[in-house]
């Protein structure tokens, strides 16, 4: 299981890009930390989620 924003999800084996797309995130509006390290945008397609990973997806919305 992969912990994503505090919730255990059955996402091991998926790429980060695939997970974001399936979960309805716009990749140009997020920042993703994996085990406390930022994942560079260019690595979303090659980053494979693993059992035990702790993923934080921060979604930005407009206004300021």
């Amino acid at each position: 299981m992969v912990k994503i924003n505090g919730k255990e999800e059955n996402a091991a084996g998926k790429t980060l890009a695939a997970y974001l797309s399936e979960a309805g995130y716009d990749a140009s509006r997020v920042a993703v930390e994996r085990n406390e390290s930022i994942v560079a945008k260019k690595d979303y397609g090659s980053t494979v989620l693993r059992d035990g990973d702790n993923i934080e997806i921060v979604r930005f919305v407009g206004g300021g």
Partner: protein
Amino acid sequence: MGAIPSKEEWFRALAKKQGEALQKRIADTSVAVCGCGGLGSNIAVTLARAGVGRLILIDFDTVDITNLHRQQFKANQIGLAKAAALKENLAEIAPYTAVTAHTRRLDESNIVALTGGADIICEAFDKAENKAALVNTVLTELPDTWLVAAAGMAGDGPANDIITRRVTKRFYLCGDGVSDIGDSLCLLPSRVQLCAAHQAHAVLRIIAGAYDC
């Protein structure tokens, strides 16, 4: 016009309110405010009043009449570059804060150079994509810099939905996380200022060494 107090009098007055040890730390801190609109102009005024030693203001835009209900500009500043106009206002409010103003559009290529080695960076942009780009760049290229960003302060929702969250060690996020101006929500000055106050407060707590939210 009254006489401007001396730098020493200014420091004493701040130390009386905020404590001398903390005041020294605040005066030794530099903060880059990226975006000088509803969030950034309010963050900058609060931090200047608190005695932050150095502020770097960055915004490409000019003051519009529709900005005046929530941004720290005056009616006679419509049309001026926001960063320069804010610098002018801060000089009147808090003359001993050193302010650098950049009228430039921030992007991945100039973020590191324009934020100039600031101890703390505040993300105060308007568009979600620009917010994400700044946050991704700072977290990737400036991992030792503290970052205080914002998401979600549009609309007329409750004040108490605006929160501060420590996402990772040096990265804080303020706002309700969901209220998107793109969803045709209204924009109320009080709610934008609440979020700006959360950001400024996060900055002061980081300076104080209090890292919880």
